[in-house]
């Protein structure tokens, strides 16, 4: 028998959005559970805060989490649905069924990785990826790091790595200076606190060149990374390094919302004023409804938590703040739009799918994601297309909004027992 846990409100994701939702929901006195696949809470930005506090705002929220009456289920991954009001989850020790009246989905986002020659070499990681590894105990002191790709995350990561003793030699931002300038000016005009944050980051990074219009062309090394070659479209040059921390913005983790039947619009989970998705009783908050940073996640999480527990008046008080953070998100996403040249950096033999080792040349011959999957096994490995799907979406314009359970590979036994698998009903 699979063990069961019953909650009035179940929150998936213990990042800022999920934690804010859970705290607000718990104010109602209802039984609230928070499930997250990481061994500790905090999500992407607040990962490891308990061991190495880094973010000011995290302390207050984590304190609030500790005093709220919440059941925290760490190290548990939701892998499928088990009928209405039930999710199937898995830990290292086996399966678990989670039952709920209301569900708040806050599964966050992941980095978008784009293929370039050498990107599979050990030592080439995501930008947030390297940061997460360092928070997990990877020694970085004295290591030479090039940070590349796109988005404000590059600055946050470089600044963090520097506080941990890394030698950040360069930040290469693909966006054009001409696109970033209006963003900077809008920030100055409308968001004085964000401007202060940006200036503080710049100060923390004094001495580290921040080059715009600049992106990686290739990574080289014998069995592990030794150098990265960058270009600004006119000239190319190589920089020796121990790590390349490289991510091209964020993409939402849509697998679970899609599996639950939630409508997706323009690539994100569609929600109403109260953060409710198209599925009654299922709410969405944080990066899954649009990439927008910490404030947006916290505000949406609070609204969802209040709305899901019959506290609409408290939710409404946050609507104006949400609008502000959404406006900020929109300017941000325009400024850091990916340039066309990035579609042409992969060589024919560059791997696109790292699970099944499928090359760019083999993938590009197909006309859709589905055809490429069937013919080449691209996206059919254990990551289930989480890496190459986001890449081909950008490279070839292939939408990848279909999903099959289980949403993560699982010890087969857990899955076969459960009615989430249509075959098991037969």
């Amino acid at each position, binding site marked *: 028998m699979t063990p069961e846990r019953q909650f009035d409100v179940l929150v998936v994701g213990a990042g800022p959005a999920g934690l804010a939702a859970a705290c607000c929901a718990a104010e109602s006195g209802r039984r609230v559970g928070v499930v997250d*696949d*990481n*061994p500790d809470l905090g999500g*992407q930005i607040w990962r*490891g805060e308990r*061991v190495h506090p880094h973010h000011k705002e995290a302390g207050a929220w984590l304190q609030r989490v500790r005093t709220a009456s919440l059941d925290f289920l760490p*190290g548990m*991954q939701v892998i499928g649905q088990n009928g209405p009001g039930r999710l199937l989850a898995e830990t*290292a020790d086996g399966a678990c069924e989670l039952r709920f009246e209301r569900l708040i989905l806050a599964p966050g986002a*992941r*980095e978008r*990785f784009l293929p370039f020659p050498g990107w*599979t070499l*050990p*030592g*080439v*990681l*995501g930008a*947030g*990826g*390297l*940061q*997460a*590894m360092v928070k*997990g*105990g*990877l*020694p970085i002191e004295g290591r030479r790091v090039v940070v590349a790709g796109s988005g404000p995350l590059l600055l946050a990561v470089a600044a963090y790595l520097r506080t941990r003793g890394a030698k950040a030699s360069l930040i290469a931002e693909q966006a054009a200076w001409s696109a970033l300038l209006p963003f900077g000016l809008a920030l100055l005009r409308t968001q004085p606190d964000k401007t202060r944050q940006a200036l503080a980051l710049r100060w923390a990074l004094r001495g580290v060149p921040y080059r715009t219009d600049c992106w990686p062309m290739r990574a080289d090394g014998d*069995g*592990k990374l030794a150098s990265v070659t960058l270009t600004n479209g006119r000239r190319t040059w190589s920089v020796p390094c121990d790590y390349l921390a490289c991510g091209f913005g964020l993409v939402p*983790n849509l697998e679970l919302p899609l599996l639950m039947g939630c409508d997706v619009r323009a690539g994100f989970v569609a929600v109403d004023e109260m953060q409710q998705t198209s599925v009654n009783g299922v709410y969405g908050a944080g990066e899954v409804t649009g990439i927008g940073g910490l404030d947006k996640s916290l505000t949406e999480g609070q609204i969802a938590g209040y709305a899901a527990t019959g506290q609409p008046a408290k939710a409404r008080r946050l609507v104006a703040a949400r609008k502000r953070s959404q406006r900020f998100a929109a300017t941000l996403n325009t400024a850091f739009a990916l340039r066309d040249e990035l579609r042409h950096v992969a060589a024919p033999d560059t791997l696109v799918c*790292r*699970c*099944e*080792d499928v090359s760019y040349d083999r993938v590009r011959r197909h006309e859709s994601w589905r055809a490429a999957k069937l013919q080449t096994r691209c996206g059919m*490995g*254990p*990551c289930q297309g*989480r*890496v190459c799907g986001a890449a081909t979406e950008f490279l070839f314009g292939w939408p990848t909004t279909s999903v099959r359970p289980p949403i993560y*590979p699982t010890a087969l036994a857990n899955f076969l027992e459960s009615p989430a698998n249509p075959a098991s009903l037969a």
Partner: protein
Amino acid sequence: MPETIRIKVNGVAVDVPEHTNVAAAVTRAGHVHFRRSVTGQPRGPLCGMGICFECRVTIDGQPHRRSCQVLCRPGMEIQTDDA
């Protein structure tokens, strides 16, 4: 002083600080190659957050565990593909 935990990576004992995850511990033990891809290429962690499956190793006999998502525990035995 932070507590340390003794684990084994490919049979060799390593001491790591408490709260270290297995991926970081494998690197601390001097390994860059975590797994071999389906065509035999060496690979190491990419995403650090459990989505890419590049950091898979064998932990206490369980193959294909994502090392970036598992905290070290005393006595843990870890094997990379090149072991």
